[in-house]
């Protein structure tokens, strides 16, 4: 087996160094400059794509403002975009999907964050041996499982369980099921980023705390977690963004009903009610994109809202300043 790496490490061994021959040298300069431009194009296409995404979403969503009106879209909860297509009887009040997205994601974070932090502390502090060897690789595998599979799993296992306590008719699908599925989906994300933050807490802090007589738990709670707060917050925000944007997993388990549950009357048991989210409302229209222009425009408007949420998340991550060193995504 030829050792390609070794040959590459010592290029002059190949003989013709460009510096040795004047004509070759000019040619390699020209190539060098050309390569620079090609590579710049490879990096620059990101900006072009981002601009195209914003331009296309805005232009497709614009009819929502002109035809339906911003007030009717953002302040009404009457969402029937596919009712009587072409007869002007559809309703495009997006309050229910917008509210649903935030509600479901909030619930998912409430469930996911404690578990994610437990994993992060376990891996970095209480049991680094087992943690690095088994837990971290296992968690990484679960980052890779397709979200639609998580949704399907919820569909075949969670819904039959919830069916017995949820209101009849929707087979157990609802806010709680969606929250749980999303929580399981984002635990690896939040845990990985938090663990990176905990790992980069200086040893001196840990040792200083222990030397002062603090118990392990005191050190974790009062020293490590506060010191790693920027990374933990970044992890939570990115988990939030990921859960917000998830479509199919939620669509499989939320029940897809455009009526806001009555939390005032039902209390917490309203979490068992079926509901909808922005991504689910968009997904519903996938087979009517060409035939329902008004509904499609309203769905593009929901995508614009998701885009804004994404932008805000990125700005938040920058503000808390954790996790993303060297401008990495």
């Amino acid at each position: 087996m030829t050792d390609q790496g070794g040959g590459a490490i010592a290029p002059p061994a190949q003989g013709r160094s460009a510096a040795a021959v004047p004509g070759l040298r000019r040619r390699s300069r020209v190539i060098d400059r050309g390569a620079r431009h090609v590579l710049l194009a490879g990096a620059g296409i990101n900006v072009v794509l981002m601009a195209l995404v914003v331009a296309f979403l805005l232009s497709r969503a614009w009819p929502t403002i002109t035809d339906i009106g911003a007030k009717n879209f953002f302040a009404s909860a009457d969402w029937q975009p596919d009712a009587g297509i072409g007869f002007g009887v559809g309703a495009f009040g997006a309050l229910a999907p917008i509210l649903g997205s935030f509600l479901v994601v909030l619930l998912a974070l409430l469930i996911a964050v404690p578990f994610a932090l437990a994993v992060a502390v376990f891996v970095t502090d209480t049991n680094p041996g087992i943690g690095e060897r088994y837990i971290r690789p296992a968690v990484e595998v679960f980052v890779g499982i397709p979200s639609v599979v998580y949704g399907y799993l919820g569909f075949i296992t969670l819904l039959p369980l919830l069916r017995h306590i949820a209101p009849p008719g929707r087979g157990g699908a609802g806010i709680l099921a969606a929250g749980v599925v999303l929580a399981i989906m984002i635990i690896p994300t939040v845990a990985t980023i938090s663990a990176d933050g905990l790992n980069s807490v200086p040893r001196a802090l840990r040792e200083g705390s222990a030397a002062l007589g603090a118990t392990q738990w005191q050190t974790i709670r009062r020293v490590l977690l506060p010191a790693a707060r920027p990374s933990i917050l970044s992890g939570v925000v990115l988990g939030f963004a990921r859960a917000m944007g998830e479509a199919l997993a939620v669509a499989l388990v939320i029940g897809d009903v455009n009526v806001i549950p009555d939390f005032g009357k039902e209390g917490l048991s309203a979490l068992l009610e079926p509901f909808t989210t922005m991504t689910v409302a968009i997904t519903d229209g996938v087979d009517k994109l060409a035939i329902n222009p008004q509904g499609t425009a309203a769905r593009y408007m929901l995508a614009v809202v998701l885009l804004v949420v994404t932008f805000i998340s990125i700005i938040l991550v920058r503000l808390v300043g954790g996790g993303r060193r060297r401008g990495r995504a």
Partner: protein
Amino acid sequence: MNRRLRRQNTVAIGVLRGMVGLLVALLVWILVTLLVAGWGELTRGGFYTGVPNIGGPGSGVGPQLFNTVYVLVLSMLIVLPIGLAGGIFFAEYAGTGRLANLLRRASETLATLPSIVVGLFGYAFFVQATHSHPSRLAAALSLSVINLPYVVRISEDALRALPPSLREGSLGLGATRWQTVYKVLLPAALPALITGAIIAAGRVFGEAAAILFTGSNFSLTAHSNYSLNPFDAGDTLAVNLYVFRIQAEPNVVTDARQYADGVAALLVVAVLLFNVGARLLGRVAVRRLQRTA
């Protein structure tokens, strides 16, 4: 006081370990549930070659499997060269100027976009603006948009992980920057690049929302009969698992349930294979680098 603190410590650490144990048990349960449910289909040869035929005998995922691989290869052909170029630029040319910062931010933002948003963009740009219809090419292009920032990052990381002495030595000997990249850095980073490419491919395998909007024919039973035409529409495995909900109630139709269980298990097995493959290659890469160092 001291005893109270010690008891608090024991309880808190115990709860923490308990939560991790619970989570690990849950993860194991997830894998076992999916694999056990789909085992019958996974071990049946016809599953891989048959066509979806809910309610009838000999149902399979042949066309979906073909479409998944087709879209995966097509999108990798698009995204790998562009992403590698971007990664090289960020690692070797960009520096920390204002332009570089803008480019990095764009890449970061693109990486955070929900795939359904990319799906709607893909429909508007790759399908409508080109006056065509949903196709595997449009799906592959949309997947490339999703994967581009990721490929850029793994390429940049792979180059940055190389010892600076490689770069300095080559430049010191009079090589131009491009010669350094092409003849020294890329060969040395090749193993890491291959690992990254495999992980990127794994991401494509499970992506569904973007394909649903740009390349799907929304049908459990319609299929493209293994055509090689990139302008044909076609559902992938992951899309199929969703479309399935529209087409059939899995808890009512037993055949449908069995079929979907098989698809889910196949996706999980694929993810595991991609993961193990990337890990093994990574290990081989490290060993080779150690030998040459």
